[in-house]
């Protein structure tokens, strides 16, 4: 009871934090029909700087870290990504009016990771002073890639099985078979993961402290605030697309972030007890799971499963999944960690 009260208090206070406030502000603007936009190129630059900042810091701190500790959490990250996709396939595809291929794509996006949400989570922990391992940002690809790869493989298998008979024949001859290697490579080469990896490498092998302190760190909070406005606008605008697809997507999108975060939190707690994974690390693992990909995921899925309907997967993720994760997921898992550990 106390916990619930304390969570509501936290939530109300959360509404006042810039992160959530700016997200809601963006939604409000879009809802009022505002023509406010942040140029696409600025958006890309902001995301790049945020990911470089996270990567650089991770890289600089990893230098003295004990990387063996990463093993179990990384394994759990992979496991979470895989579970989310299978779970989504089972849950969503059974619902009325939902095509199995669309269900798989949606689950893939929820299994993948949002860099922006992750950045918001990190800033939150930094602000309240909850510590986490230096290498936590390196967990990102361990959850992101397996989820996307699995979704694409399952999606293509589903298409082949149910496949449009007339065209099937001519297509099979010409379309290349699913290559897991290819998809993994494609994922790693995406702009979000590339920026993170570049930051990690530069943090690890060069001495970027002066530029980190004078540029990447001071811009972090401001750029994140703008990113939240963009995501808010986008969330509202995608709602209209969500309305065109089955309502069950909306239901899934409300529950999924909390369910997925909960699963990861549980696995993280096991790591906490087995190898001393920090409470902050557990929270960030939960946020990775709770978030759904907004930058690299959609185009990867689009290329991988072209016949899946983006209105379904982008709509669910951007319009509902992400706001729920930021508004409820982040404070919830943080609060949970202070109670549990």
């Amino acid at each position, binding site marked *: 009871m106390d916990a619930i009260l304390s969570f509501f208090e936290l939530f109300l206070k959360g509404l006042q934090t810039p992160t959530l406030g700016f997200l809601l502000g963006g939604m409000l603007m879009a809802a009022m029909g505002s023509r406010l936009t942040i140029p696409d190129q600025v958006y890309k630059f902001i995301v790049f700087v945020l990911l470089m900042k996270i990567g650089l810091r991770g890289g600089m701190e990893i230098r003295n870290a004990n990387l063996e500790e990463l093993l179990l959490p990384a394994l759990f990250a992979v496991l979470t990504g895989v579970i989310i996709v299978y779970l989504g396939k089972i849950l969503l595809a059974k619902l009325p009016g939902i095509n199995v291929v669309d269900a798989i794509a949606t689950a893939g996006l929820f299994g993948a990771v949002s860099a922006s949400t992750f950045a918001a989570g990190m800033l939150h922990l930094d602000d309240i002073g909850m510590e986490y391992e230096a290498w936590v940002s390196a967990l990102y690809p361990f959850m992101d890639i397996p989820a996307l790869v699995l979704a694409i493989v399952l999606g293509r298998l589903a298409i082949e099985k149910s496949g449009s008979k007339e065209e099937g024949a001519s297509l099979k001859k010409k379309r290349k078979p699913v290559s897991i290697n290819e998809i993994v490579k494609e994922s790693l080469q995406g702009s979000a993961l590339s920026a993170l990896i570049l930051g990690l490498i530069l943090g690890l092998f060069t001495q970027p402290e002066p530029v980190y302190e004078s540029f990447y760190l001071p811009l972090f909070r401001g750029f994140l605030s703008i990113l939240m406005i963009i995501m808010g606008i986008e969330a509202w605008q995608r709602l209209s697309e969500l309305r065109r697809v089955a309502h069950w997507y909306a239901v899934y999108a409300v529950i999924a972030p909390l369910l997925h975060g909960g699963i990861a939190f549980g696995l993280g707690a096991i790591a906490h007890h087995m190898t001393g994974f920090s409470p902050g690390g557990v929270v960030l693992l939960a946020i990775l799971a709770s978030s759904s990909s907004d930058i690299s995921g959609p185009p990867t899925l*689009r290329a991988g499963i072209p016949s899946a309907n983006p209105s379904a997967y982008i709509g669910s993720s951007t319009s509902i999944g992400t706001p729920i994760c930021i508004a409820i997921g982040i404070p919830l898992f943080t609060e949970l960690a202070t109670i549990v550990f």
Partner: protein
Amino acid sequence: MKHKATLISVMTEKVFEEEVIEVLLQEGAKGYTIFEGGGNGPFHMHQSGHISVADEFRIVKIEVIVLDSEVADGIATRLMEECLTDRPGIVSLSEVDIFRAQKF
């Protein structure tokens, strides 16, 4: 000297651009031009709008001029079958006059 030629216009999403160009080059096109835009079509929704968190969903138009109208038909047919069957996209052909035929 004017020559008859055929202009092939392909509209599709950016994410499929590479595949289309691969087909064009295989079929012997000596050049092509690409424009980015936005659009809406009967196949799912598309990003036509302003903000585009998923830039790869933008519409591109790929224009190729080839001299021989049968080559054009061949390219169009291959594109429809290989690149655009279960994907967004349209292909159109039109007649144009060009100069310096050796460039095409």
